[in-house]
């Protein structure tokens, strides 16, 4: 039976943990608060260490909290992160996404900085500032950076935040045996989609949408063992999904999967969602990492990386590239379907569409089609935001006392 206007807005008949109000995906104020209370306080992947292999190599990063950042490897081989903002008149210091710079010299008035963020030269400094301002007063803003969990460079805007290790806890434990060898990024692309970043993370946190993927319907869902995989939630909003066997031959044109990945069972699949918008996805012979960078309530930039092993022979690398792009490349079968899905949510959920609720209500003993991964995320989201995902504007009245 269809529903009228009043029925449409009625709360779902499920526990309040099992649905969310769609204004958490569309409200400008909530988005600003997320940047401040979530993105500027959590550890975020900025890049992979293989992207800055040599001293003075740098890589720029648009931090999801809004800050332009660059990562630089020092002459001491330590990787540091700084605001990509000139302390003089606010120009961007490094324009290119990557490069190598012994000195970072702002093009505007030629102030210079070294790989540790110290200002090394103020052009005609004494003439203009006499003793009123010195180089020590105008160093770069350093951002906490740590390398870990597969050689990724993580940054945290919050100087008072816990360590990366504490933040992740055991969440990446399933992947630990698979990340013992050094990895290398071989694929990188970005996509801007008019949708909320949480909807992308949600898609990465539920497998029920295998119905959308022709490939997964026939290679995964019909195979024995598929429904045995379990979700595990960890502190700080992270969640993992364990391994299963996938029968690749079931897909017409699927090849014998020979290469695999050290530590991953043949045909296995491990996925870990790291709060608030990063996903490790290990399948066949490839590690994929997604990083969401929200640009607005209904706009997200997603960075996609494909990684192989640093020790790969050219033949092994070629196989990983093939495995990656058939499914996950910009022309891949699954990525386009996933992005089409969240793009559609963006169309239906943008402000003023009268969308109301999103239901995360499936309970199947935490197995693959259970929606516990999303519920776990929104519990942490609510805690950090001081808002309830099902009632973000605190409109619901407490039930009248009997």
């Amino acid at each position, binding site marked *: 039976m269809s529903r009228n206007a009043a029925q449409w807005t009625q709360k779902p008949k499920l526990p309040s943990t099992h649905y969310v109000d769609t204004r958490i995906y569309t409200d400008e104020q909530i988005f600003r608060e997320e940047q401040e209370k979530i993105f500027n306080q959590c550890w975020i992947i900025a890049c992979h260490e293989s992207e800055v292999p040599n001293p003075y190599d740098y890589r720029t990063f648009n931090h999801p909290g809004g800050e332009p950042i660059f990562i630089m490897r020092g002459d001491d081989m330590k990787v540091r992160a700084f605001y990509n903002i000139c302390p003089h008149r606010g120009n961007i210091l490094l324009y290119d996404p990557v490069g190598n710079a012994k000195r970072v010299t702002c093009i505007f008035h030629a102030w210079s900085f070294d790989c540790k963020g110290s200002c090394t030269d103020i052009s005609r400094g004494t003439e203009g500032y006499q003793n009123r301002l010195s180089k020590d007063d105008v160093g770069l803003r350093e951002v906490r950076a740590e390398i870990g969990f597969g050689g990724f460079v993580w940054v945290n805007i919050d100087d008072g935040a816990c360590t990366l290790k504490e933040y992740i806890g055991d969440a990446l434990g399933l992947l630990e045996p698979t990340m013992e060898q050094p990895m290398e990024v071989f694929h990188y692309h970005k996509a801007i989609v008019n949708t909320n970043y949480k909807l992308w993370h949600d898609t990465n946190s539920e497998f029920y949408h295998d119905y959308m993927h*022709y490939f997964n319907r026939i290679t995964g869902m019909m195979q024995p063992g598929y429904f045995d995989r379990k979700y595990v939630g960890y502190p700080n909003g992270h969640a993992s999904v364990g391994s299963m066997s996938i029968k690749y031959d079931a897909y017409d044109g699927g090849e014998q999967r020979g290469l695999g990945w050290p530590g991953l069972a043949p045909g296995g699949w491990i996925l870990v969602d790291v709060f608030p918008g990063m996903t490790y996805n290990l399948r066949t012979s490839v590690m994929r990492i997604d990083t969401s960078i929200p640009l607005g309530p209904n706009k997200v930039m997603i960075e996609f990386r494909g990684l192989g092993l640093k020790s790969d022979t050219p033949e092994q690398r070629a196989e990983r590239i093939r495995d990656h792009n058939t499914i996950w490349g910009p*022309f891949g079968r699954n990525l386009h379907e996933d992005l089409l*899905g969240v793009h559609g949510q963006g169309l239906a959920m943008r402000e003023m569409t009268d969308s109301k609720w999103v239901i995360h209500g499936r309970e199947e003993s935490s197995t693959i089609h259970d929606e516990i991964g999303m519920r776990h995320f929104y519990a942490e989201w609510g805690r950090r935001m001081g808002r309830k995902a099902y009632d973000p504007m605190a409109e619901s009245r407490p039930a009248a006392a009997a």
Partner: protein
Amino acid sequence: MSTRQSVEELVYRSCMLLDDRNFKGYLELCEPGFRYTISAHSPEIRKDMIWLQHDKKGMETLFTNLPRHNSDHSPITRHATVYSVEMDEANGQAKVVSALQVFKTTLDGGVTELFAVGKLYDTVSLNGGGPKLAERTVKLDTRMLGIGYHVPF
């Protein structure tokens, strides 16, 4: 028709057939040993990337599976301009470089936007019976493709 003209026409017909989703017709323009690649260079990771690579059989499988997938149904239009044709008479081949622009037109309302630019690097075989595509590499300058696309360029 001169060989150069027939080579140019092959490039243009390959675009028209794919625009029309006439996959069978497209494959008929290809040699049995045909290889298709979409590549791009990422300055971010300082690497050349391969985004799609298939032999003729792989292309056939891809085309067969396309209707089974959920896809963006907005049609795309390929505009090619043949820049150079280098004849290699000894090997019965021509190396062809063409500029490529791909436009996407929404189904609802028909808004057209530039989707991608790049170049086509074709090896065309000239061994009788008209020129055929032996190899095509699409080198994309555009790397931001939004939600992506299932049909090769």
